[in-house]
């Protein structure tokens, strides 16, 4: 069971603000999903085991300049913009 402080912290980390009704039902869902995932605790693994990816090695692209999208193209989907920038509410 999540304590209220944990739940509030989680919503903040997830960048979600839920209605009271949503909070109740999604909290119940989360607790059910966490209980489901807790089965992982039944299995042991070597402490030295490192995180894994599906590929044995990663290939990096050469660090070279390549053509990018033009500014006006990048701005095409912006809900609010001026000639050169995305517009949003002031952060401070």
């Amino acid at each position, binding site marked *: 069971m999540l304590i209220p402080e944990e739940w509030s*912290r*989680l*919503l903040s*980390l*997830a*960048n*979600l*603000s*839920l209605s009271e009704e*949503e909070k109740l*039902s*999604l909290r119940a*869902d*989360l607790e*059910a*999903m*966490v209980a*489901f*995932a807790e*089965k*992982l*605790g039944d*299995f042991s*693994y*070597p402490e030295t*085991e490192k*995180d*894994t*990816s*599906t*590929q044995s090695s*990663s*290939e*990096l*692209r050469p660090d070279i300049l390549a053509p990018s*999208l033009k500014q006006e*193209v*990048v701005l*095409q*989907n*912006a*809900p*609010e913009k001026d000639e050169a920038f*995305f517009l*949003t*509410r*002031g*952060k401070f």
Partner: protein
Amino acid sequence: MYMMDLPLYGTKNASAGLPSHKKDRILPLQRLLLQKECSCRELAKAYLSAAEKSPLNAYVLLTAEKALETADRVDQRIAKGETLASLEGIPMALKDNLSTEGIPTTCCSKMLKEYIPVYDATAWKLLKEQNALLLGKANMDEFAMGSTCETSCFGSTLNPYGKDRVPGGSSGGSAAAVASGLAAYSLGTDTGGSIRQPASFCGLVGIKPTYGAVSRYGLIAHASSFDQIGPMAASAMDAAIVLDSIAKPDPMDPTCTGAPSSAVKALGTSLKGIRIGILREGFQGSRQEIRDAVLKTAKVLERMGAHTEECSVPLLTEGLQIYYVLACAEASSNLGRYDGIRYGYTPAPKEEEGWRERILRARSEGFGREVKRRILLGTFVLSAGYYDAFYRKAQALRRSLTQQLKSALESFDCLLLPTTSTAAFPLGMLGSDAVENFEADFCTVAANCAGLPALSFPCGITLEGLPIGAQLIGKAFGEPLLLNLAWQYEEASSPVPMPPVFAEKTAGGVSLGKLGL
């Protein structure tokens, strides 16, 4: 049955001499175009008209104008006697999480309802360069999160085999479109089974390629270490033709470094000496008629020359927990980009609202319930205090599961198991139970965890008339063998019947039904 003897295109050498299968669509349609029995424009119009009238909600957008432009280009090339590319002029659908320049790509979410990509996904670009005939964007679960296609903001897609049934998900629209004759083939995406499960529910061949075989560039990310793009088609030949066209290394996706050898060329090769492991744990919880159909499939493949034997991958039973912890963690990170500032849903402004409050409101109003659930679980397993117990442990177990699968594949060429433990279930049945939703993916997630190729092909029908899918998991870049096994099975067995909802189309006065569509 006819023999492919026309000098059609790049795959002609491989397909020449192979008998056609009843459900093949790509080669018969090309034959139709090249023999001028109908024009590509007529073909496009026939498909678009059928899609407009369809009650299945398989498409969320039809791209009629662009389709007709493409059709005209193809017709000009045919008139000049030019050689057509392998998928040139063939009508197809794209799942709506694949970026299409200038064409809305919504992920079936309110969050991206107005979004128009400014570049093409590589997989689509490779098809577009061939003049593939894009009919439209196919319905899907929101952000590819779901197993039923019911979490789409455009409403559910219906299963052509029973309109009270789900088509599966998340690539449900892509599956229903092909199964009901509204597209010759489609592209879907598979993070935990989203190509194979709907392919199974709709009687199709669907393949999740090896991780790194098909570029993910332009695929709107769900869980980046699991996501793959792949074909959904009516037959193994069709799926092989499409896979050969899209599996190419791409510098825009650093994980896309390899490509399987030609799948089309592998079709028809002998199964003698092929060893198939019947994966015991994969049958856990399966309904009896599903088990019977898959085991009967093994017998058919044995008669074709393969050797089958039971094998075990014990960690398969924990695949769901491993997958959901990791996939939700990656999803919560990937979906962090949606803030309503650069693109995506932005709520109406409120005077007193600050910068952060507006972002929170954009996300809370823009995402649906299933997406929020998964963001919350992903954020939880990555948060301080829980990271080691959930995320780190799941990563370690993912490696163990991968090792167990690879170990089994040292003794066998591929593994056989059901694609799903049930046939298509009724709409609304999974309802709001979060864990029940997860369990629908029991048979499919292991291949994604290990990055291995896996294919679903139709192997029977239930007493209720719903298709059953058998699944093959192969070695990395072993797609040609999997497709050959599916092709050989088609060769030796009767096809699953066509669905009751199948588009009755005509093109240029020629019934496409005559070609076995």
